[in-house]
């Protein structure tokens, strides 16, 4: 039986661990050179910081995960620096790209752990040099020991906002301000009386307290207005409105922004897994059950690609998905482990729901972005151009859903395939059409999931 695992973050590592434990030698593919995923991303060789400095309170988990990853590599068919750009159904194959060459790997069952990326809301000026995602700001520090600027503003909402701000402060970067678009009251309501995972809540409060103690401006309920600057000098300031409605101006030379994360379900989509809008997460999420089985035989999902849950959930979900694969293959399973993990996952799900209520995606902010804002940064299409595509008087009539809007405006036709702008574009279109964002569809998945050079196609034609 040919088994494959795509992704070597927390979910992929624990999935492979279970498969190897059961005596299998899975094909293990990861896009990065040395695995670890995002939360536990490792700097390249030569960096000296220890786990505590890199991962703070998560250091023990990070160390354990890396140890497991390194121990498992020789037990699997480990293929790093490799992109899976398509999944074929008949025959079942993973289509890969490694060092500029393609290959096809047949499989009988695959666990897709392709992770997530930041979820963003464009605002005027966000394409200037100096603007990154919150995750990007964190990677600059964690993996390269750099701050994204001399005076960094951090904007958005969610636990990552405070974590990155705290990490920057601790590393000695100058944090101009931490601006949270979610009002204090929203967070308080959602998190009050939250018994399920007090550790995460406590960490957040701790970070905010330390930031304030350091004299860093931490504001909540803000409305970002624009990032100021020009192409040559990059970012120079952030204009925003505080909770009381006063317009304020913040000097900075870099802005890290983000509002939670969104799954990267492209391979699941290409494998035929139905993708549905999850109103709680405010994300399009592939369909799977509690163990990670999907409606597509032989395809399993785990980790943030299957729905945002964070690193701890990803580890448990990876192990469960592997156990499900083993059960379906009529191989010996560990029912006690599965039972324990399922109970913990259920508890985590309740906490995640509260977290989503505490840091809701700012749909209204997205829907209200000014017409002149570049919405699709790949194709430089503005919010105004998207709104025009919803007008019945336009030359092609009104676009009733996102794929048609994409055809009319080119939004989502760039190299990133709508990863960055997709959610915000949907909010803008839905608001203009007067319907719910769940009703206007999602950008359909198209291979290759990331750009594929023509030179990668093999020289000789395959025999007919």
């Amino acid at each position: 039986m040919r088994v494959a695992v795509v992704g070597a973050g927390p979910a992929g590592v624990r999935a492979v661990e279970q498969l190897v434990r059961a005596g299998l030698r899975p094909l293990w593919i990861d896009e990065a050179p040395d695995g670890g995923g995002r939360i536990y991303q490792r700097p390249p060789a030569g960096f000296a910081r220890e786990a505590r400095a890199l991962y703070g309170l998560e250091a023990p988990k990070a160390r354990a995960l890396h140890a497991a990853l390194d121990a498992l590599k020789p037990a699997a068919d480990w293929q790093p620096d490799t992109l899976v750009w398509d999944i074929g159904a008949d025959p079942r194959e993973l289509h890969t790209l490694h060092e500029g060459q393609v290959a096809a790997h047949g499989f009988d069952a695959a666990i897709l752990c392709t992770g997530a990326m930041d979820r963003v809301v464009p605002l005027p000026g966000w394409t200037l040099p100096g603007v990154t995602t919150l995750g990007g700001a964190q990677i600059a520090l964690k993996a390269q020991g750099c701050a994204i600027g001399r005076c960094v503003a951090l904007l958005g909402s969610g636990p990552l906002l405070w974590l990155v701000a705290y990490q920057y402060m601790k590393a000695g970067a100058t944090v101009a301000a931490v601006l949270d678009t979610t009002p204090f009251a929203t967070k308080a309501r959602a998190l009050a009386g939250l018994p399920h995972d007090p550790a995460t809540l406590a960490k957040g409060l701790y970070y905010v307290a330390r930031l304030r103690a350091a004299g860093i401006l931490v504001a909540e309920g803000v409305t970002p207005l624009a990032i100021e600057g020009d192409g040559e000098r990059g970012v120079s300031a952030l204009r925003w409105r505080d909770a009381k409605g006063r317009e304020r101006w913040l000097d900075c030379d870099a802005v890290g922004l983000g509002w939670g994360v969104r799954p990267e379900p492209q391979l699941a989509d290409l494998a035929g897994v139905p993708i549905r809008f999850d109103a709680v997460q405010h994300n399009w999420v592939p369909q799977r059950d509690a163990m990670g089985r999907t409606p597509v035989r032989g395809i399993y999902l785990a980790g943030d690609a299957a729905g945002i849950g964070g690193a701890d959930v990803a580890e448990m979900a990876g192990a469960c998905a592997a156990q499900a694969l083993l059960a379906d293959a009529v191989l010996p399973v560990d029912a006690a482990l599965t039972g324990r993990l399922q109970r913990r996952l259920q508890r985590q799900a309740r906490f995640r729901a509260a977290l989503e209520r505490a840091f809701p995606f700012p749909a209204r902010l997205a829907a209200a972005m000014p017409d002149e804002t570049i919405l699709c940064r790949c194709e430089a299409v503005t919010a105004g151009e998207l709104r025009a595509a919803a007008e019945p008087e336009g030359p092609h009539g009104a676009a009733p859903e996102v794929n048609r809007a994409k055809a009319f405006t080119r939004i989502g036709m760039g190299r990133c395939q709508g990863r960055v702008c997709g959610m915000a574009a949907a909010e803008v279109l839905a608001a203009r059409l007067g319907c719910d964002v769940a009703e206007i569809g999602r950008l359909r998945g198209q291979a290759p999931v990331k750009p594929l050079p023509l030179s990668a196609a093999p020289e000789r034609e395959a025999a007919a």
Partner: protein
Amino acid sequence: MTAPVDADVLIIGGGGAGCSAALHLAWRGARVVLLERGLVGSQASGANYGGVRQQGRHPAELPIAKRSHALWRRLPELIGTDCEFVQTGHLKLARNEAEAAELLAYLDVAASHGLQLEFLDGMALRRRFPWLGPAAVAGSFAPEDGSANPRLLSPALARAARQAGATLLEQTAVTDCRHENGRFVVETATRRFRAGRLLNTAGFWGGQVAAWFGEAVPIRHHTPNMMVTEPIPYTIEPNVGVAGGNVYLRQIPRGNVIIGGGYGMGDPVVPMSRPLAQVTLQAMRRAAALVPALAGVSVIRSWSGIDGMMPDKIPVVGPSSTTPGLFHAFGFSGHGFQLSLAIGAILCELALDGRTETPLEELSIRRFLAPQGVPAGGVMA
């Protein structure tokens, strides 16, 4: 069930042909209702390559293509937008002597239909198109041909048709369709429509409609494997194809290069279609062989769509062989996009006047039926 809707003409299928027919009929004041089960232009009409060419067509199609070309040039005047139609020329390449002979032989066919082509040998080719690699040994250039954006045509035609008074119902699947008491009756989940004329422009599914009226034909579904690259500096002006058609490419002024070749896979029942990785790679290789500078360029997405393929690779166009008032235009075998504008005009003439000047005999549905005019395997209705 609400009261039935009466019209002059019903149209099944909202691709380019159906929407063009709706527009032409509305211009002539006919009451027309078009029924489309998805959004207009969802399948072949929206997913195709976008080639707008007369060169290379079977002679039976050339009169329609010529008529269509005149309409393409007038699009802004007719529907208020050009759907990005550009006449950058169509360059058909030969990669060996046999293919070059093919191109040469077609020069006369083209000339007899008033289509002037220019034959270029290897040296002339590379002088004129320096981006061509050594794979191309000869070429035939059609200066009036070009390309347009297939994703825009059907929606633009539909908007103009609605503005002219036609009723186009999207997300409206036909559940039943019959001829009774001298009228066509077409049912959807919630409504019933009646008219004296019915146009079958249902693409691959046109075969199903034909079968409902006792004239089943051997149609297969066909899913062109398409892809597009990232934007690069604009150098490839003409729409480029090859003898035999196993790869074709065109660059838009924005810089992206659209490449097609081979077939993906699809299931017309769902309907779904998607490209196949190995086919995509094969087309990439062939494209890089034609234009070496494309080697370092990346494909950023691929797609397919469902078209209808006839065994002789030319469509079924013309009156039904069983039912007066029913007119077919389906099975465009991978090259219907350019024809769709004139097909609409022709269907309008057939529906309202009972005849058209454009010759259609070679495209008749009868060519698939037993010699006596009796449908193979069945009796006349």
